[in-house]
Structure formats: C-alpha cells, structure tokens
C-alpha cells in the first residue's frame, strides 16, 4: 500500500487551522479536539525513511537525563551539561549527546496514566493501553505493513533485545525479527558453517516433499497455513545476500569499540548496518532503568553507556549521510518521581517524562513542551505517548489517522489516536 501524502495546499490550510486553534483557543481546546481532527494536521514534508527506536527499559529518570532541574532539591546529586544549543541542558552523563543537540529535538512534556511497566511500555510501543481481548500491533508493525518494503529480502522490522509488542492482530509477517544478542544475531537462524550447502538444499527438498500430504489434509487450519508462508520467507532469508548486515564482525574493531562494547552499543551498531540496507525499523531495547533503589549510581552508569552508543550512532549516521533519512527516537515507558525515596531511588512517574528525537524530519535544536519546576507535571504543551507514535508515523510520511478494523470489528489508528507534534517536525 502506498503511503498517503497530502498536497501542500491541504497541509498549509491544516497547519494554519492548527496554529489558529493553539493561539486563539489555547491548548485545552486543541487537546479536546477529536483525534481524527487533530491527526489531520499531520505535516507532509517527511524526510525520514527509516526509524531507529532506542527503548530504555524500566522507566528512565527524565530528571537525571533529558530534563534536569539544576538547583532544585529534587535534582539530587545529578549535575548538568550545556548542549550545543544555548539554554538547553542535559544530565551530565549525556555530554556526547549534548554536543549533537543541533540534530536533536526534545519532548519534555510527555505524560500518561499508565504507571505499571507492562501496561506503560505496551502503550508506548502500540499507541494503545493493553486490552485483555486483543493484542495491538506495535507502531513498527503498522509501519512494516503500510510503508512499502525497501529491501525485499530483509525483514522490515528488527527488534534487538526484548520486543515488547509485535504484530498484534496483524499478520505475523509484520512481527519483529528478534535478535537477542547483537553479536550473535544470526546464531540459530542460518545453518552452521560446517554443513555443506548441497546438504542444506537436499534436506529442504526432502522436508517439503514429506510435508505435502500433511498440508493437503491440514492446510486449511490458520496456524498451519501461516507456517507454510513463514517457511517460505525463512528460506528466502537464508539465501539473501544482504544477510551479512547482521554480522558485526564485518565492522572494524575501532568502530565496534567506538559504539561501546556492550549490548546497547553493539545494538546501535547493528541498527546502523540494518538501516543502511533499508530495514524500515530497528528497535534496540536495553537497560534496567527501574531505579527504585540507588537511582543516581545506576542512572549514571547506564547513561554513560547510552551516551556513548547514541553519540556514536548520531555521528556515524551523519558522517555516512544517513542521518537525514533516518529518524532516531529515544524513549522510555515513563519517568521517575521527583521525590527521592528512602533507598535513594526514584519510583514510577507517568505524570511527566521526556523523549528525544533526532535526524530525519526533526527540527534540530528544538524543545517541545516544558515540565514544571520540579519535573512533576507538564507545564506547557503536554503530549502523550500516542502523540509520540503519531509523530513518528507522520515523520515517515504515513498517515497517523490510517484506520484498520480488528478482526473483532473495532477500529484502530496507526498513530494510536494521537496527534503528531508538528512543532518538532522540520
């Protein structure tokens, strides 16, 4: 299916309407607009072709990373660092990222109602709170389904680390290709090197021949049918030339060291190799940011790894001329409480948190929204995880209001009913 692109005229009119709404009637009015109206305000000057989605597991403390509050008691021992954009500060551990601020847009006014990990990360990834009755597709699965495939052989959606959401009620074709360890991305998925090619091919032929009578009898059963097509896809992938994209040993030692010799750094490097070969969406899920205890030690340690990986990724993408067409997103399921608890930790805080976007389609150096003096609540321009999903979708030139009816007859939108944050899109 082709992405829906709006004409320049339509866009201008809608942008104007949105602008008018914001200035004339204030934010409350915009938020109260039915989502289909808000979603129509999607900008169309999309530049991103692909997404690298860096998901920080467990709820990353916004106060100690993307939205510091220097001088406030809630800040604790965390220090800040100046960025390339005057007046914008980050947590001190993110120094390298801070140097890239001109490529970066921050959202500092995210908020949601979901304060439990599973629910919150599900919502972040799908644009919907979990329902017991159905599984929603991940935003990445929507993109995999509705954006044309750029590389016929490689899977459109690769998830490094624990994938939170998959195809949902979509066909499993749009489920992530999961990689546990980026350094062993092809372990278990290609034949061991010691088995000669001809033996592999011979076996495949035998397998297919023996399976035929079974398919004749049971092929109408949905699951059996699905596996038939997945075996076909799997065989195609096993023979694909671009498979080497998964092989980090093709990189120089310097490059590998540069990203950080850890799961996150190597995950970012793998992501770069994959989007270079036009995989649409690579997620790298990493970390344990659930810092109920010893928040400051733990955040400092993890943020250093994050900073190295993210910094190297942005620099590398830029050097290769890929940053303009790639949208890099850094997000987490919620923030952490301004209050520092007895164990020097911070607890779950969905009332206010932050995200970072960089690269294609993003207005570099911008900050959307603002939290109050202690990072407790959004003070200006609040945005939801659904708005974030819609923003990514819009940045790819897709329509966040694209609707699909689930098998049970309920309508769902690609952008989760959120409105793109136009202010940070170029």
């Amino acid at each position, binding site marked *: 299916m082709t992405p829906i692109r709006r004409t320049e005229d339509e866009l201008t009119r809608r942008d104007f309407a949105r602008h008018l709404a914001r200035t004339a009637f204030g934010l409350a009015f915009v938020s109260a607009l039915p989502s289909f109206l808000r979603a129509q305000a999607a900008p169309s000057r999309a530049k991103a072709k692909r997404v690298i989605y860096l998901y920080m597991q467990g709820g990353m403390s916004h106060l100690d990373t993307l939205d510091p509050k220097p001088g406030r008691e809630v800040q604790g021992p965390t220090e800040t660092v100046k960025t390339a954009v005057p007046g914008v500060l980050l947590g001190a551990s993110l120094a390298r990222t801070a140097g890239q601020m001109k490529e970066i847009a921050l959202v500092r006014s995210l908020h949601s109602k979901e304060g439990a990990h599973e629910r919150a990360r599900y919502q972040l990834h799908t644009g919907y709170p979990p329902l017991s009755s159905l599984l929603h597709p991940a935003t990445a699965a929507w993109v995999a389904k509705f954006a044309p495939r750029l590389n016929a052989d490689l899977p459109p959606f690769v998830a490094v680390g624990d*994938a939170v959401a998959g195809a949902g009620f979509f066909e499993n074709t749009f489920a992530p290709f999961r990689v546990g*360890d980026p350094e062993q991305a092809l372990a278990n998925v290609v034949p061991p090197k010691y088995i000669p090619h001809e033996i592999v091919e011979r*076996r495949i032929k035998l397998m297919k021949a*023996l399976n035929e009578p079974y398919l004749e009898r049971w092929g109408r059963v949905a699951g059996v049918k699905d596996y038939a097509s997945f075996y076909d896809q799997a065989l195609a992938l096993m023979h694909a030339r671009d498979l080497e994209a998964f092989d980090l040993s093709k990189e120089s030692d310097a490059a590998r060291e540069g990203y950080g010799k850890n799961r996150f750094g190597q995950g970012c490097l793998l992501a770069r190799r994959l989007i270079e070969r036009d995989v649409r969406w690579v997620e790298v899920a990493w970390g344990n940011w659930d810092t109920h205890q010893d928040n400051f030690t733990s955040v400092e340690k993890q943020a250093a790894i994050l900073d190295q990986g993210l910094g190297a990724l942005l620099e590398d993408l830029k050097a290769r001329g890929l940053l303009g067409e790639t949208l890099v997103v850094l997000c987490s399921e919620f923030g952490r409480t301004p209050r520092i608890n007895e164990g020097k930790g911070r607890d779950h805080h969905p009332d206010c948190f932050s995200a970072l976007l960089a690269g294609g389609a993003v207005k570099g150096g911008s900050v959307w929204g603002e939290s109050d003096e202690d990072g407790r609540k959004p003070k200006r321009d609040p945005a939801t995880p659904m708005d974030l999903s819609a923003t990514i979708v819009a940045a790819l030139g897709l329509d966040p209001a694209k609707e699909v009816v689930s098998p049970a007859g309920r309508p769902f939108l690609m952008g989760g009913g959120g409105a793109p944050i136009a202010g940070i899109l170029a």
Partner: protein
Amino acid sequence: MNQAAPRRALRFLIPSILLLAALQGAKEQKGIARGKPGEAFPHQTETLGDAWRSNAAVDAEAVRRGAASIDAAVAAYWKRLGLVPAGAAPDEVYLRRVTLDLAGRIPTAGEYAAFLADSGPDRRFRTALALVRSEGYVDHFYNLWAGLLRIPTANPGNGIPNRSYEFWVKAALRENMPYDEFVRRLVAADGKASEENGAAGFVLRDQMQGILDHFSQTATVFLSSQVGCAMCHNAKFEPWTQKQFYQMAAFFSELNLTKDPAVMKLLREEEKAPDKTPQMIAEIRRRQREEPWILSDVRGRELKLPANYVYDSNEAGKAVRPATLFGPQVVLDPDQPRRAQFAQWLTSPENPNFTRSIANRLWKRLIGIGLIEPVDDLSPDNKASAPEVLAALTNLMVSSHYNLKVYTAAIAASRVYGLATAPETVTWHKYRLVSHPLRRMSAEQLWDSMAALFQGEKIRERQGGRVAHQEAPGMLRDQAMQGKPIAGVASAMESPGGTMMIAANSMTPMPGVMAAGMAPSMTMAPMAGAGGDKKYKGVVIPLACELPSPIRAGTFLDQFGVPSRESVSEGNQDPSMIQALFLMNANEVQRLITASPQNQLFVELKNAPDLRAVVRAFYVRFFTREPTEGEVAALGAYAQEMKASGGKGVLNQDIAWALLNQREFLFYP
C-alpha cells in the same frame, strides 16, 4: 553404578522437608483457621492440614465420576443445540494428545508400544490417570503456574528467594495440594522466608511493585479479573471504580516486609570468615538479599486514596476501608490479619469467579479453547460458550475439594476430550465442542518433546524436576560451592552466546558448569569441533521447567512464545518466520539430529536392520504413528538419490532434520 543408596537417603529427606513445610504451613494457617468465618461468610473452609496429602494418589473412582459428569453436561449442551459430535480420535492420536497435555511432551517409543499392546478395558482412562500421577504432570503444570505467578529463577540477587518458591510450587503440584489451600498459602504467606517457606515468594515477587500492583496481579491470576485497569482510573469496560479498586487493595495494606536481624548478623559473620572464594562471598551476599525476609502484617495500617484522586476531591488522600467488590461481603475482624481474611474470602466457593477461573483455565489447558475467552477476563459481559459445561466443571472443582489432579484427569478421560480433530481453524466463536482443535505445541512442550527424542525412555525418570526436588536447595548449593559437579545435571546446551555447559538446577555458576541465560562473557569456549562429528559431552538436556527464567530474549523457548515471567501469561503459540529458521538451524536442532552416545534417538537406531526399520523408528518417535507406505517409499528414493550423487552427508541426519521440520511435529491433533 549404585545410585540406590543416595536415592533412599533422599527419599527420607524429602518427607522431612515437606514435613517442615507442613509445620510451617500449619503455623501460617492458624490465623486463618482459628478465626470465626464471619456471619456474612457462611462457608467454613476446613483446614486440611496434612489430610490432603493422600490426594497425591488420585482416586480413580473420583476421576471416573468426574468424567461422567462432564460427559453428561456436554451431551446436554449438544442436545440443546442439536449438535452431532465427531467420532473418537484414533488411539495413537489420543496417546500423543494426552501425553502432551498432561506430561508436556510427546510419548516415547516405549509408551507407544505399551499403549498399543494394552488390550484391557479403559485403556485411555488408565493412561490419563497414570499421567496425572507421573512426574511429567508436575513439569507441565509447573510451567503453567510459573508463567501465571511470574516465578523468576534466572536472576538470583533480585531479592526474591526464587528457588524455594519454585520448589514449593512443584511440591504442591506433586503432592496435589488442593487448589484453594494452595492459593490461601500463597496470598496469606507469613513468617520467615526460609527455604521451607517457599510460598513467601508470592509476596516477595512483588516487593518492588507495591501493594496495588500486587493486588492487581492476585486478582488477575486467581479471579481472572482485569480489575487492574481501575488502579489508575475508573475502568471503562468493567464495573469497577478506582475507589473500589482501592477498597479491595486495602486488604493488603497491612503487609509488612522486614529483614530478620539475627539472620543478617549470621550471614555477615559468615561473609567475614576466612578462606572464602569470591564465588562463596557472592553466594553469601545473595543469601543476604533473599533469605532474611520476614513477612508480617501491621494491624490497622491503612491504604490511602491517591492524592490526585479525581472522582471526589474530598476523598483524595484519605484512608480506604477494605471491602470486597463482589461475592459475599467480608465482615472485618480486627483481630485477624486482613490478608488472611482476604485469602479466606478469595478462595471461598461462594466467590464464583475463584472456581470458574481455575476450572476454565485448566479446561483450556487441555481442550485448547476456554469456555470463556480470554481466560483471564471473567468480566460479566464475557459469557461462557457452553454454560452447562462450565457449571459441571465448577461443580466438579468444588465437590472434589479443588483436587486438581482429579479434575484434570476427569477432563482427559471425558468423551469430548477424546474426539477426533477437525481440519479447520477453530475459534472460540465457532467452537461447539463437537471436535478437537488442532494445536501448536507450546514452547515448553516443543522443548521437552525435543528433549524426549534426545533422551528416549530416560525422559520419564528425568521429569518432575527430580534433581531439584530430591536435593534441597541448600545441599545443591553446598555442592556447587565446593565446585563439585552435580550428578545428572551437567549438560551440554547452546545459547546465543555459544556452547556452554550448564547445570539445569544449580543456583550458582561453578567451574565447568554454568547456568543458561548468563552473559555470553561467562560462557565457556565451544566444546565442539567443526564437522558432523560434533560431540556433546553433556548427560541430559534440561527441561523447560528447570531452565533459569525469564528465558533470554531471542533464544529458542523465547522465540516460540514462552511466558515472559514478567506479566501474567500462559505464553503464546503465534507463528513467526524466525521459528521456522530456528527449527531448521538452531543449535538445539543440530544437537538433536547429530548422532552421539547421549542421543538416544540415534542410539536406539543401532539395531535397525534396514531403512524401513529406521523410518519406522523415526516416525514412531517423532509422530507417534507408523509411517505410510508412501513415506517409506519417498525416503527410500531419497536414499537412492543420495547414494547416486556421491553420498555426502549422513542419511539418518537428513531424515531426522526433515521430520523435525514437519508441521506434523509442531502441531498435535
């Protein structure tokens, strides 16, 4: 090798551990059993004490009566809707089905032969009965509960005494603890979190989550209630308000976790003692995090509504009194811990969703489709497809005193369970109980079935987390600390990090033996050289119920949908391309199709006189049936062709690989 002596010693040891557990249990139970049940709470739940231990034997007559009551209800349902059921499934199909559903793996060649040779009456009934009495039952149903209770075992050091929790649940299943007793002991777990008091793991599992989440999980698992939505706001699709959620959660407000200073002191002293290796110190530190916990209740401690409570600003931040949302109202007894009173209410047969939840869950575990779907949502709008059948099942659950083995065996022995399979997609909306659905094996069934192929008849001895329950955790650890290999558990096994030795049941890394799921940096160099002569030194493959969990993302079990142990889950059977890649290429598959002295699949072929015999042996083991003439011919032709083209490779490996990749292996009718 004389293994009898230690085994006898262990046989003595187990009862003493269980006795300790029982004494501990009896202590815990006092608070619940002694208290008056309350006027609005007419059902007096008896304290079974040790009486239920006789349950482990499983009374055949009770199973027979149970199956008959299910048959009657299903027949009434068919009659009401004018339905005609399919005929009975062929015997070998039934054997494969019932073995997978009760023991979590495919039958061995020996079981297949014995079943077909048995010409006595009630062959199916007796098979079902034997299976619920077997150790395979413990494995298979532990996998269910481990997913629902989110029992984490891979991460010692997270403050949860995981292993004792695991052992406790396995023991409860093995001993067939009545389900209501099981739930009461978990929910109202009290006292020191010693190795004997594994039930404390239920509370300790949620120590980071807080009581709201703890209550929410409790309601999901035992009541199939999605009350959790009301944690943050009035639920949209269910009748619960946020205030009501808090009223229910208030039963947990007294829960108090402290650490026993005496135990802490002892452990600190032990840490300081001389001649400690870093491993031993790490182990002591782990124990410091996990063992000193004391669970208690601070009487009268209240839960407060959130400060941002939006529905009535007068109530924001105020204390909420405990109250139940449905079922009989609890008259609060200030002399009793609230949790114990909640547990009593929760498990009362007057609380309809308690019984329906477990009855429906286990029905789905065997039939494949719940009478109510999804099984963890019994909201009032979610109606049963066959209400009379659900009624019979809840009756059976109550009348058997929540005897899970009797209940499960009764379903397996019922007529509806034994029906032939329809070759079509069956959804809840379409399912009328007139045939059996075709099902994909769960991740654990697939794993354990591959283990069964590899280990042949020995799999029967292996099941039941035998090593785990025969050796007390402390003993196991002591051996590990001394660097001694533990007989029978060291095993070859691959992970994305490379080949490594693992001890399926060990808690600590030890020389030459490491736990699966560890960082790749800790893995040993691959043991095998390149080539078809790849050798696997290990003795046995760990079963799914023995592997440290959560299973690492991207590994075999994870790819096939094993529960995350993070959210309440029974796992999923969704297909994916990567599963196909794994079945063709994964290390586990290479191990299984490669001849080695440990690989019984190939050892048992040694005496096969010709290709026909090989093919038959393979088909019986992989598919629980005889090969057709067409299949024998096809493989004969393949062998010819291979010979003609120079004969590179090993024929039997090719056949094993091709059979493992048949959909007939992955799906069971």
